[in-house]
């Protein structure tokens, strides 16, 4: 069943203020794929993810997740989804114990199960001691870990991660990357969107590049390299989005800073 289609998007269009932020997206994702979802700011990445999570309506086209058309009004498909948003919004007056049992229960876990599982996961991240301290006192990295745990607690089949490594230290980054690789190998489908190209290049089994509200490249890293005759994903990205003058911009920036000193 490894070829089971987890997600299919057909001719997805979304207009906002008379301008298309998504202009005919087609995407089919099979079980266990690790998709690197990249693109310049404002290309429509987060809008796509928000549509798939049912946060935005008013699009045209069809989005099917686990075979269910998400426009049919049922929220059942969300039970198998995990989500780490770009902005680390948390109810931070709560402790991780309270927050994680709460989100766990929203996904249908029992209080006891969520509590116990979350505690052990926190310990894995070296946060066992702060399981009962308020999230408001946490550093950025600690908050990120709580978010990761809350997205994984119910063992989702489909994961949406938006800059999941932000704020984590180098050791934690290694741990999380390894976790994602193992989950993916075990059949979890992962949608990984990030601006850090090195990471995307290394962990993704397939890369989807969005620019100007449409998919401009879709394939393995090797295929993208061949398509654009470039070496690293960063260079592929620059080439496909038509960006060549970073040197000149940097020169101008520095010369402005140095003025008058």
């Amino acid at each position, binding site marked *: 069943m490894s070829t089971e289609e987890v997600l299919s998007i057909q001719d997805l269009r979304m207009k*906002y*203020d008379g301008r298309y932020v998504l202009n005919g997206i087609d995407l089919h994702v099979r079980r266990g794929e690790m998709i690197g979802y990249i693109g310049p700011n404002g290309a429509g990445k987060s809008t796509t993810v*928000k549509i798939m*999570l*049912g*946060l*935005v*309506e008013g699009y045209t086209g069809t989005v099917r997740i686990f075979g269910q058309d998400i426009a049919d009004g049922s*929220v*059942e*498909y*969300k*039970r198998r*989804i995990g*989500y780490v*948003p770009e*902005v680390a*919004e*948390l*109810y931070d*007056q*709560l402790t991780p*114990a*309270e927050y994680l*049992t*709460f*989100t766990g*229960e*929203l*996904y*249908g876990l029992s*209080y*006891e199960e969520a*509590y*116990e599982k979350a505690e052990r996961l926190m310990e894995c991240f070296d946060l066992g001691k702060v399981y009962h301290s*308020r999230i408001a006192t946490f550093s950025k990295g600690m908050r990120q870990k709580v978010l990761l745990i809350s997205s994984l607690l119910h063992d989702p089949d489909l994961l949406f991660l938006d800059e999941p490594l932000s704020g984590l230290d180098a050791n934690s980054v290694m741990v999380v990357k390894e976790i994602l690789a193992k989950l993916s190998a075990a059949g979890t489908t992962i949608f990984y969107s990030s601006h850090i190209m090195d990471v995307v290049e290394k962990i993704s089994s397939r890369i989807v590049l969005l620019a100007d509200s449409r998919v401009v490249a879709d394939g393995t890293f090797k295929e993208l390299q061949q398509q654009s005759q470039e070496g690293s994903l960063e260079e592929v990205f620059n080439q496909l989005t038509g960006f060549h003058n970073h040197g000149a911009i940097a020169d101008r920036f520095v010369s402005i800073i140095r003025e008058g000193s």
Partner: protein
Amino acid sequence: MLPQEPSFRTLLLLDKFKGILTRMGADYGMLRRILQVKLLMDSRRVPIILSNTNRKEEDADKNLFIRSLWLYGLMGIVLAPFVYISDPNYMMAMSVVAAILMFFIMTSMISDFSSVLLDVRDRSILMTKPVDGRTVGLARSIHAGIYMLLLTASLSAASLVTGLLINGVMFFLIYLIELILMNLLILAVTTLVYLLLLKYWDGEKLKDLINYVQIGLSAVIAIGYQFVIRSFELVDFNISFTPAWWQLLLPPVWFAAPFAWLLGGETDPWIIAFSLMAVAGPVALLLIYLRYIPSFELFLEKLSHSDAGSGKERGRADRALARWFCRTREEQACFRLSASMMKSEREFKLKVYPSLGLSMILPYLFFFTALRGSTLAEIRSGSSFYVLYAMLVMVITTVMMLKYSGKPKAFWLFRAAPLSSLGPLYRGTLKAYAVKMFLPLFAVNAAIFLSLFGMRIVWDLVIILLTGLALIPVAAKAMLRTPPFARAFSVTQQKDGWIVLLSFPVLGGLGGLHYASSTVPFGAPAYILLLLFANGWLWTKLFTKAGRTSILE
């Protein structure tokens, strides 16, 4: 041993309504869990006033809003006399009671609990989970509703008891049911107004619009309330009430009618119609609201949209003003920052602008009550221009608000910047306040007073102006316990009403001093000189030692 989930008595009460809520389309288990978490969070909100007294916050899991309820209880005593005199002419007295209650509930709904209704955080935390929009929306409304009910209970406690003892059990029961209907009405109306705004606008423009609607409503309600209170000093409560069709537009009248019908035995068809409206109005609005909950949840997404757009350069005038009033470059920068904060910080505007509006009107209200029956000529030659001192209440209440910001964490900037003390921040902020808020408003009122009383009071106006200016740094020194813009606004913020009460004797004293100076020869010029000196000293010396850049978290 697993720690128990915290339980709230409110939730036990809610369990009684499980059937109804399920029929409204909510998933009751989820709803209850969401509410439980929200109530838990509210109990954690660190109160502003207590936050720098270094008390142990961890074990103070008490909801601060609940702790401030006694104040509303005190305010509610005002209602008791109206209830006392209501029998047998219920219409007048009970309309006033309903109007006052609705005023308090509505203002607090708009200014304090809008953040509950419009919480965008719920979008990414709750709506990404398998919970449907109706459940989340209902949870949100019930959350706000719980606070409204508590507020209503404290406000009406005194009058409820009076009603029970004086007017009997029937009165008490009608009153009780009406209070619940009133709450439903207000909750539904507020939500529907937001729904309309959300439907037609989005992003920053929407936030501004909501802000202006809130400011406008609060100001109208506050000023209208003053007028109502004062106009009823003129009204004889024993005159008979004549119903008319246009009263159908006044919800307080609806709520007065059932008393007249069921207890007073009035059978005028209008009275019965009003009584029916008291039930039908809230229920109808509630049904409309329930119908639109899912759209409300969806529209909320628009609040998190932000289209950068292209802004224009702003603040040229502020730059000139800053250079005019501030000596050092740091102080000028702080002046400009404060000027734009006062202009664009939405929460600040919401809390401050309505009281500014009220302070503009306050002197005239004193006029009307003090000078009833005197002719214009008498007023012109009199000395009632002293009521302008009432305007200075605003200095005291609004300077206090300068310590708040919607983004208090941005205060790190002042610690990171090479400032040797926070003196420039204090001085710049207060100067910006004086120039951008106090002076323009004072100028308007001064112009009106000049045209009314003639040029003879020009020196008196100068004295009042100088007094007001001197009050700014004094009020800041006394009441800004933290640097400007360093504290967060909070839903459960305690009311500072008592400070206003405290300010009246102070202002009265200053007015008295002013009057005394006018009775001795050369008193006025001497007083002006004294005030000038005081201003110079207060504005320069009071904040030179405000050097501690560290503030307690």
